[in-house]
C-alpha cells in the first residue's frame, strides 16, 4: 500500500479522500490555492502545499504545479478526485511519466471514453446500445443529413460536436424543420466554440438518467455495484440522487448492469468509473457516456452495498485484486443524496458567498454528511458552490424520505444562503414521493420556484435578542447583580429602599 498520497483536489471530496487515507494509515498531502488557505481539507492533511492563486487554471488545474508538489513531498500516488484534472488524460500520462501512480484508469481508456465519437464507436462495436445518432461529415450535403435524420427518427437533437454543458443544442420535431436548424446550429457552434461540426442524436422524451458504478482491477476483473438514479437535475446539474432507482425492476437492472460491465470491458477499464445510461419510458436504455473517475454521488452506492469506493480505488491502484465477485454484491435499503449548494433559490439560484459562521451537521442513524466546510470557512466565487452532501440510508424509500426531510430541517448552516429550502420542497413534492423522477422533473414542477414567503416568527426575534443579551456583558452582569440581591446579605442593593434611578418623580 502507498505510504503517501497527494490529493489533487479541494472541498468535500478532498476531505473524503483524506479521511479514508487516514483510516488506511496513508500519509496525505493537500494542495491548496490562496483562496483556500483556511479550508477544511488543508487542516486535515498531514502536509499542505500552496500551489497558486485562486484561479483554478493556475492552481487546481495546473499539472506542473501539482506534480511539483508531489515531487517536493515525495508522494507515491496522486488521487485526482472528481472535476478538475480527474478526466484529463494528459494529466494521467504526465503523472505516470513522472513516476507516480495515478489513481484511476489507463490513459487509453480515458481518451476513448473522453471523446463522444470514439466512445460511441467502441460501444457500438461491443454491442452496447447507444443513442441513435449521426456525426455530420464535412462533405455531407443537406440531403445526406436528412437521410441520416430519417434513420434516427424524430424528435431529434442537433448538437455541436465541440459543445457541452447544454450549449449548442437544438430540438427538431419534424423533417421540414431540419435544414434551417442544421444551418443555425452550425453557425452557433462556429461562433461559440470555433468548430462548426454538428451531430444528430435521437431525442428521448422524458428520459431517466440512470448510471451504473463500475470497479475494475488490474487483473481484468470488472463488476458493477448497481445503479444510481440521477434524474433530478437543474440545468443539467444534478441535485438529488438515489439508489435503487424506483423505475428499475430486477430484470432491467440485470440487463443494464451486464451492459455496463461489457462497456467497461470494451476499454479494459481499471479502477472506479461510471456508465451513464438514458432510459426511455418503455424501458429501452441507451449508453450516454462513461465518467472515468469517482463521481460526486458515489456515497449512495456505498451505503446500500457497504463498500468504501475510495478505499477500493487505493487498493486497486496499489495492485490488489477486487475482494469480491459480482455474486457477492447486493443492495440493501434505500439511499438518497442531496447536494447542499451555497445558492439563493429565491434569486434564480445565484451563488452566494460569505463566511460560514456556524455549521452544525445533523447526526443520527442512517445520516451521513460529506462536508467540505466547517465554522469559519470562506465560500468564494472561484469554485463550485457545493458545500456538502447529505446522504441518507433508510430501510426503504419511504423511511429514507422521512429521514432526509428531518436531516435537511436540522442541518444548520449560518452565514450563506443555501439551497436547503429548495431541496426540502423537492423532497416534499408528491411527484417525487411517487418516484416520478425523470430529467424534466425540475423544469416541470419547479420552473419558477420561490421559497414560501413566511414572516419571521416572534420566536426568531426572541432567540436573536437572547443571543445578543447573553453575549452582552453589561446585561449578564446586571442579571448577576439582580440574582445577588437575594443571596448576598451584605449587598448594598438590599438597602436602597425607595431610591429611584432615572425615573420621573411623580
Amino acid at each position, binding site marked *: 500500500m502507498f505510504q503517501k498520497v497527494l490529493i489533487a483536489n479541494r472541498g468535500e471530496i478532498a476531505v473524503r479522500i483524506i479521511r479514508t487515507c487516514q483510516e488506511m494509515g496513508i500519509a496525505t498531502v493537500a494542495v491548496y490555492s490562496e483562496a483556500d488557505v483556511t479550508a477544511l481539507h488543508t487542516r486535515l492533511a498531514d502536509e499542505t502545499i500552496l500551489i497558486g492563486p485562486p484561479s483554478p487554471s493556475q492552481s487546481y488545474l495546473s499539472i506542473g504545479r501539482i506534480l511539483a508538489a508531489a515531487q517536493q513531498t515525495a508522494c507515491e500516488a496522486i488521487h485526482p478526485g472528481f472535476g478538475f484534472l480527474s478526466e484529463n488524460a494528459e494529466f494521467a500520462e504526465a503523472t505516470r511519466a513522472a513516476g507516480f501512480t495515478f489513481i484511476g484508469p489507463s490513459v487509453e481508456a480515458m481518451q476513448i471514453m473522453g471523446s463522444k465519437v470514439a466512445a460511441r464507436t467502441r460501444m457500438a462495436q461491443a454491442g452496447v446500445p447507444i443513442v441513435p445518432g449521426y456525426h455530420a461529415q464535412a462533405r455531407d450535403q443537406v440531403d445526406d443529413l436528412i437521410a441520416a435524420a430519417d434513420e434516427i427518427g424524430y424528435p431529434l437533437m442537433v448538437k455541436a460536436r465541440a459543445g457541452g454543458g447544454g450549449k449548442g443544442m437544438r430540438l427538431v420535431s419534424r423533417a421540414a424543420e431540419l435544414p434551417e436548424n442544421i444551418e443555425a446550429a452550425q453557425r452557433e457552434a462556429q461562433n461559440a466554440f470555433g468548430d462548426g461540426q454538428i451531430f444528430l442524436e435521437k431525442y428521448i422524451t422524458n428520459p431517466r438518467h440512470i448510471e451504473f458504478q463500475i470497479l475494475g482491477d488490474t487483473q481484468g476483473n470488472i463488476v458493477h455495484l448497481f445503479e444510481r438514479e440521477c434524474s433530478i437535475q437543474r440545468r443539467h446539474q444534478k441535485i438529488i440522487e438515489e439508489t435503487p432507482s424506483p423505475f428499475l425492476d430486477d430484470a432491467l437492472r440485470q440487463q443494464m448492469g451486464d451492459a455496463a460491465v461489457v462497456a467497461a470491458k470494451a476499454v479494459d477499464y481499471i479502477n472506479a468509473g461510471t456508465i451513464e445510461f438514458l432510459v426511455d419510458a418503455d424501458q429501452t436504455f441507451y449508453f450516454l457516456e462513461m465518467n472515468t473517475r469517482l463521481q460526486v454521488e458515489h456515497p449512495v452506492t456505498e451505503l446500500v452495498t457497504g463498500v468504501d469506493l475510495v478505499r477500493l480505488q487505493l487498493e486497486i491502484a496499489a495492485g490488489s485484486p477486487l475482494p469480491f465477485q459480482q455474486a457477492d454484491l447486493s443492495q440493501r435499503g434505500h439511499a438518497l443524496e442531496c447536494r447542499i449548494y451555497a445558492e439563493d433559490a*429565491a*434569486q434564480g439560484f445565484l451563488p452566494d458567498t*460569505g*463566511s460560514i*459562521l*456556524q455549521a*452544525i451537521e445533523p447526526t443520527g442513524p442512517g445520516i451521513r454528511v460529506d462536508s467540505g466546510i466547517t*465554522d469559519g470557512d470562506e465560500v468564494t466565487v472561484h469554485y463550485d458552490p457545493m458545500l456538502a452532501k447529505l446522504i441518507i440510508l433508510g430501510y426503504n424509500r419511504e423511511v429514507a424520505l422521512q429521514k432526509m426531510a428531518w436531516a435537511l*430541517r*436540522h442541518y*444548520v448552516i*449560518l*452565514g450563506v444562503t443555501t439551497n*436547503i*429550502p429548495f431541496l*426540502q420542497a423537492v423532497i416534499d413534492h408528491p411527484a417525487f414521493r411517487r418516484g416520478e423522477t425523470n430529467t424534466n422533473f425540475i423544469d416541470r414542477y419547479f420552473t419558477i420556484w420561490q*421559497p*414560501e*414567503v*413566511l*414572516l*419571521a*416568527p*416572534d*420566536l*426568531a*426575534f*426572541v*432567540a*436573536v*435578542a*437572547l*443571543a*445578543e*443579551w*447573553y453575549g*452582552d456583558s453589561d*446585561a449578564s452582569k*446586571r*442579571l448577576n447583580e*439582580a*440574582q445577588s440581591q437575594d443571596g448576598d446579605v451584605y449587598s448594598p442593593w438590599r438597602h*436602597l*429602599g*425607595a*431610591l*429611584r*434611578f*432615572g*425615573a420621573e418623580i*411623580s
Partner: protein
Amino acid sequence: MFIVPGDIWEPYDSARRYLDVMKSEYSYQAGPEAKTVFITPEGDGLCVTINQRQIQVTVPQLKQGTFYFSVDGQQVKATVANKDDRWYVHLQGYFRWRKAQWVLTSPTLDQRRSLDQEDETTSGLLTATMPGQVVQVLVDADEQVVQGQALIILEAMKMELRIAAPFDGVIQEIYCSGGQTVERDQSLIKVAK
C-alpha cells in the same frame, strides 16, 4: 402596570423603575417587519416582551454553539450567528414550521427612532425602512388585501424585502411605482381598514 398617583402600589413603583433601567432592548428587522424585544431579569429567569406580549423564558444555556432555553415551558434550541448587522438564526424544537432559518438585521439608530414613532401596524401607512429600489408593486388602488399579503417588492442591500399588509383592508393609495428608487422613511403605500 400603570401607576396612578395615590395608588397603593406607588411605593413599589420604584422597584419597577429600577428594573426598567436593567431592562435590555434589542430591535431587529426581518423582511417587512421590525420588532423590538425587551429582556428583563425576573426571578430565576427572564421576562421577555415582544409585540406587547410577555413570555417567561429561562436563562439561555450555550452548548457547542447552540442556545438552549424554554419559552412558556416549550424547549427551544437556537443557533445564532452574527456578522456586521446581520443576525442568522436557526430554530429547532417540535415546531411544525416549514422554515427553520431566518436572517434578521439590526436597524441603525435612526431606524430605531422611527420605530418609536407612529406604529404603521395601526395607521396603515407603510414606508421604506431602508433606501432601495421598488422592484414591483403587486396591487392596484382600491384592491382588497388580507393581513400578511405581499403588496410591494423592494430591493435593498442585496435583499429582497416584501412589504406586507399589516391588517385586512383596502389599498387607499400607492405612492410609488416599479423601478423607482426610494429613500428611507419614504411613504410607499397606504392600506385603509
